[in-house]
């Protein structure tokens, strides 16, 4: 079976769990603490006793010393809904390796971590009509997860990222961690991120850009044809035009990052072709995306 990632990379993720900045309500008991008081062994706080409380949680030591009944409360442990949203728009087919391929590898890494952490991992190809995605949990589900990632998409051509995200927002998807793997090359992308945040998701936006996106090596008089069917642009690819492009790209990326972070999420830029291991080590682990 193709694991999408080398065993070495998977070993780097062993024992780690996705670390959302906020807790999200779960549906079933899981391995992840919530803010809600619950029955786990994770101590949360004290509160005064009230009639009807379970005496098993009465702190007898405090009662003996202070002669005051105090109840120990515990944090509940729930599963985390992890939505892996893969941008499948035409722009993701650029680069070598393609951004779509890199997105699948990153999704594999993050999905593997989520599965190991007992999270409810749901992969989704944005913009494609597909049967409701299966919710996967546990290490044993990694095979299915990889199989789903490796499956060829259909013939239909997805629309822009923002439209696909808005469709997802409109769905009844459970609130949780929405990890967007996309090049973000859609002028409405920041707005789409804000829509995700508004729906209650914590958005991790991993922007995957190729060399062509970051350092376009263009020269001469060109008609740039939009890979996603947008307007063609006539340019003279000179230093002036390239400088303007880089400024626009930096501004757009900053807007994406701002939208994700303001919503309590995270943002990272990944250059297609860079090693995944370095990303796991330098971004996911060092910046605390996984713990």
């Amino acid at each position, binding site marked *: 079976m193709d694991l999408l990632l080398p065993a070495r990379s998977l070993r780097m993720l062993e024992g780690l769990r996705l670390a959302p900045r906020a807790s999200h309500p779960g549906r079933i008991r899981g391995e992840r603490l919530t803010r809600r008081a619950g029955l786990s062994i994770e101590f949360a706080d004290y509160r005064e006793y009230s009639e009807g409380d379970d005496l098993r949680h009465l702190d007898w030591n405090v009662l003996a010393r202070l002669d005051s009944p105090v109840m120990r409360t515990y944090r509940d442990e729930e599963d985390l809904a992890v939505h892996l949203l893969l941008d499948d728009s035409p722009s993701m087919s650029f680069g070598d390796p393609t951004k779509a391929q890199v997105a699948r590898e990153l999704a594999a890494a993050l999905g593997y971590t989520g599965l190991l952490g007992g999270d409810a991992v749901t992969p989704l190809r944005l913009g494609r009509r597909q049967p409701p995605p299966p919710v996967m949990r546990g290490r044993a589900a990694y095979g299915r997860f990889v199989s789903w990632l490796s499956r060829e998409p259909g013939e239909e051509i997805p629309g822009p990222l923002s439209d696909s995200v808005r469709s997802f927002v409109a769905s009844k998807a459970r609130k949780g961690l929405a990890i967007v793997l996309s090049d973000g090359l859609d002028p409405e992308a920041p707005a789409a991120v804000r829509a995700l945040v508004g729906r209650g998701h914590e958005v991790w936006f991993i922007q995957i850009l190729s060399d062509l996106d970051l350092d376009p090596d263009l020269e001469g008089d060109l*008609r740039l*044809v*939009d890979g996603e069917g*947008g307007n063609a642009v006539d340019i*003279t690819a*000179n230093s002036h035009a390239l400088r303007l*492009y880089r400024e626009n790209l930096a501004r757009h990326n900053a807007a994406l990052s701002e939208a994700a972070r303001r919503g309590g999420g995270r943002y990272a830029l990944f250059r297609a072709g860079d090693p995944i291991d370095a990303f796991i080590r330098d971004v996911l682990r060092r910046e605390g995306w996984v713990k």
Partner: protein
Amino acid sequence: MSFARPDFLLLFLPLAAIIIALYLLRMRRKNFMVPATFLWPAKTEEIRANALFQRLKPSWLLFLQLLALTAIVAGFARPQFAQRGLAGETTVIVLDSSASMGATDVLPSRFSDAKALAREAIQAARPGDQIALIEAGPVPRVIFPLGNDAARQTSALDAIKGTDAEADVGEALRLASAVVANRDGARLVLLSDGDFEPIKDFSAGKAAVVYRKIGIGGTNIAIEALGVSDTTRGRQLYAGLKNYGGQPWETSLSLYADGKVVDSVRLKVAAHSTVGHTIAAPAGARLYEAKIDPQDVLKADDYAAISSDPTASLRVLMVGKPDPFLERALALDPRVTLDKAAELPPDGGSTYDVVVFDGVPAQPTASRGTLILGDAGTSNFVAASGVDKSPKFLRSETSPIMKGVDLNGVFIDNAQRVTASGDAEVIARSATGPLIIVQSKPNRRQLYVAFSPLESDFPLQVAFPIFIANALDFLGGTAGNGPLVVASGRPFATPAQKAASIQTPDGGKTDLAIVNGLATVRETRNVGNYTLTTDGKSRPVVATLRSPRESDVAPVAQLALGNRAVKSTQSPLRFADYWRPLAVLALLVLAGEWWLFARRS
């Protein structure tokens, strides 16, 4: 302002139309697919064009290109501003330094006036103007070549001194024409009084000839003739004066014998007339001189001298086709007065000391010497029997004529096959027969050379002038050691082995170079007494001017140069070109356009 090439202005419209059309063309761009286009600048100014039309948009590049085109086209059209001035962009100044330019009708002299004009022209030269200066003296010479160094040019100009000699202005103008070598817009400026021989065979090419007449004219009395002759009344000394002016003039005439005054009279000379004065010449004198003091405008012709030694002067008649090599070799002898003729005169050349037949059949002459070159004709001491092709020199006999003459290696194309008759003596021969034969009789000597100089490379050998000098000594008699009277400005050669020098009238001394036993004297450019010293022996040399052309000092208003007449111009128009600033402007604009283009590319 005018344009030298206004036709170039017509190029502006089509060229500008082409440039504008390039801006009207819409680019045919190459399609290139990118992930997204929204990040690319929506409007990029087009700086290249290659396809269909679009609306013309304001563009700095277009403006700069049209500006550069304007400057270039205007530069090619050569805008000009008319100004007065002697010099143009390329100018060769020909400065006449002949004797007549020493006339003082304009003060201090015509020559000084001409130098002042040349100095003004040099100092008024613009950056980029090229000026050369040629002195039209007895032997024309380039004082400085085309250049633009006013300080050095002025210094060289100041160093030129006038002469008391006839000038070869024609050769000077030919030299000037060669200097400009068909340059466009070149100008030959002749600063002269026009008192020289009419110039034939001259073409200025593309250059314009500007003649600036120097002088206003004035009375000049010249000693036109001075001679001694033996008559029944004994030896007579004759002096003739001519008034070249338009009004009668009175002057004193003093005659000297070996430096002592022998007669002094006051003579009145009518306008354009000649007056003679004859006295009995003192016996035994070696040098006779004549001086006048007319207070006229030219001093150089107020003095004349003549030697009483009959060998001190030689009248030579050259019969045949022009032969510049032979003429030059004959002229090197200071005694020679050369005349040329196509045929022997009916009197057999009795008035000449030597007759030279060059390449034409020789005839009996009445002169005391005959030099036959190439064709024995009807001469009585040589019998011709055919032609030898490419004869090789074999040997020569010991003879004063062959002294210093080596015929080894001389190529001879054709030589007459001859035999010497009677008392004739063969002094040089080839493998097939005699090459040089001499005959010497009382009062008559003949020298025969079996080939014409022009049918050999003999004139190109150093032995040639030596041979001619030896031949003249043989035919005309060896010059004595008395005073040598020469025409001023005419170079001459004198035998010398070790050292030679000449002392000029002002006391200056010049060492002369000796080449193949001959020292050439070029220093007698002014009238006066010189001292020539060769191998320790000194000899007086008297340079005199006897030239009716120079003495007639009336300036000439119109010259005949080649086939056209050139009138004197007081101050010709000069069209100053302004294409250089336009070229600089075009370069600057193009540099700016390139910078702008590079900045956007």
